[in-house]
């Protein structure tokens, strides 16, 4: 067992409201990712679960039992800190052994467990070194090993990959997923990297300014963003957003363009809206009748594809195209919009319109 649920967490630091009613339910055995930009309150959420932060309001339940007032030690959790927080005077071995020593395991148990976890993370040859003698990637593995050496209720990980270089980060992503699968256990994993969230998570909670914006599977969050902000934060290149409103069976843009009204929406005429279209749902090839006219603004070749920036009125649209696409800036072109996959948001609240019709 290892469920974690928090309800209505509130925490302010002076003027800053770090958590503003955060509610999350992490099922047993899930790889649960909390995604949000820097300053969203991700670390504070984890620290609240761990019992390191005194809350203004809210409760923490572990395995369905109220653990709000419990000490960190009593909660039976393991945490990887954003800064790793390896004990500087201790060797890697002693760092990894620390959770077992604190729980008075015999030294043969300790040796066996440390050996096992260090072979899992390929750090056998680092065990006698101190943190100062380790590289960032090695420290990160030791910090992971310190968490994984025990079988706690849940593992809390605070951006463990953020400080690594790109290559190592991609490698570790796969490795962490593999570890999660082979060990089982509940992971609450915090990151500001939407690629990490989409590629690793069973479930994602998107956090902004201490408020949960959306909880769902990676597909749900990507395909059906709950609001304009989530749509903008998740996905790369960024979703393009255009101000518009409905007039009869047409969608009229503030920049003067018109498109057919998406079949799935029943929104009333005149309500200010935002049309959101992802780069892969736009095309510079002629593919239908729903198209916008604009001018080529720039090309961003990325190897396997090219992102074409197209200016429509004052807005830049990001369009995904084949790597062979060419053009000169200023050139007129038509952008085809896949309206079945587009999103409409209320311009005032930012909330997604009901997509029940799809």
């Amino acid at each position: 067992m290892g469920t974690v649920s928090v309800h209505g967490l509130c925490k302010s630091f002076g003027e800053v409201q770090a958590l503003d009613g955060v509610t999350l339910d992490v099922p047993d055995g899930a790889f649960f990712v909390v995604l949000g930009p820097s300053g969203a309150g991700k670390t504070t959420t984890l620290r609240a679960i761990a019992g390191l932060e005194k809350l203004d309001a809210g409760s923490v339940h572990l395995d369905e039992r109220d653990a709000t007032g419990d000490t960190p030690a009593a909660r039976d959790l393991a945490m990887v800190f954003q800064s790793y927080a390896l004990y500087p005077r201790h060797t890697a071995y002693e760092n990894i052994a620390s959770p077992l020593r604190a729980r008075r395991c015999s030294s043969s148990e300790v040796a066996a467990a440390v050996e096992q976890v260090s072979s899992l993370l390929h750090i056998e040859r680092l065990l006698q070194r101190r943190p100062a003698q380790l590289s960032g990637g090695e420290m990160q593995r030791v910090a992971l090993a310190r968490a994984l050496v025990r079988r706690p209720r849940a593992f809390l990980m605070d951006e463990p990959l953020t400080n690594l270089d790109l290559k190592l980060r991609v490698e570790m992503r796969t490795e962490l997923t593999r570890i999660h699968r082979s060990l089982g256990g509940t992971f609450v994993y915090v990151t500001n990297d939407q690629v990490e969230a989409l590629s690793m998570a069973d479930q994602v909670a998107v956090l902004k300014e201490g408020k949960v914006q959306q909880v769902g599977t990676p597909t749900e969050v990507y395909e059906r963003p709950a609001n304009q902000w989530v749509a903008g934060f998740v996905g790369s290149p960024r979703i393009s957003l255009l101000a518009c409103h409905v007039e009869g069976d047409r969608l009229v843009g503030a920049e003067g363009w018109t498109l057919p009204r998406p079949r799935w929406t029943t929104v009333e005429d005149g309500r200010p809206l935002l049309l959101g279209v992802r780069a892969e749902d736009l095309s510079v090839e002629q593919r239908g009748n729903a198209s916008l006219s604009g001018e080529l603004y720039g090309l961003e070749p990325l190897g396997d594809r090219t992102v074409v920036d197209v200016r429509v009125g004052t807005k830049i649209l990001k369009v995904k195209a084949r790597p062979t696409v060419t053009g000169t800036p200023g050139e007129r072109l038509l952008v085809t919009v896949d309206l079945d996959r587009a999103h409409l948001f209320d311009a005032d609240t930012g909330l997604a319109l009901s997509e029940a019709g799809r």
Partner: protein
Amino acid sequence: MAVSVDDAVSAGPVRDHTPPARRFGGRGRAVLEVALLTVLAVVMLFPVLWMVETSIKENRDVYAIPAKFFDFKVTVDHFKDVFVSSSGGRSGLSVSFLNSVVVAGVSTVLATVLGVPAAWAYSRFALKAKKDQLFFILSTRFMPPVVVVIPIFLMYRQVGLIDTQLGLILIYTAFNVPFTIWMMKGFVDEVPAEYEDAAMLDGYTRLQAFWKFTLPLLVPGIAATAVFALIFSWNEFVFAIFLTSSDDVRTAPPAIAGLIGGTTVDWGLVAASSVVFAVPVLVFAYLVRRHLVAGVTLGAVRR
């Protein structure tokens, strides 16, 4: 002058944005610097030199006019007199040195044992009016001892602490605890709180986390702080002379001062006991010299 706690509390590195001065030519400036430093060194060190010389001169040479700088007879008689009385037993001075060791040592240990956990608490926990509390603690050091010695004398007389070692130990501890808290808070601030957080998740209690993971990292800071406290208690004169009177309680500073006066002054003995008095401070300062620099420049240096 207004003292702002905010300025005092902030541990941010002090950056000096003024460009390097180019007022003097590099060479002329260096000469001037060396000359000034030499003058200062002579003014500061001459009395020390004279003290050391006097302590090893025979009495005849001590009183010689004109004074003899080099061609005097060397003797250790004065040092013998510091420790052995003329009748053969322990001298009064040696008793007062022992008293100084006890009083300074115990009060330093007490101040450290009380001050270090307090500094940790002030560094780690959110407290109501923390800055005001810290300012209050510091403010107890604003008044020079001579200002408070009369009220303390009266209070001590009421509770029977006059002329006791315990009385001196308590007052020195009271003076050293605020200093210890302030200095140690700087050192504790430098140790990331996350080590303790990690230790608590490992399964340790908060106090165990402090004891096992933070305290070992504070040892250099504690050593430097304790030496400062030790030097304060060792050198303290005003409380000692007001609050103690009998020879078997008195510490070294008033005892040495008591040698001067009367009809004749045995300058050789005064000098020798002063040397003996100065040596422990020098030794301690030497042992922790690296940490002393770290302590003095506290907050201005970042790893």
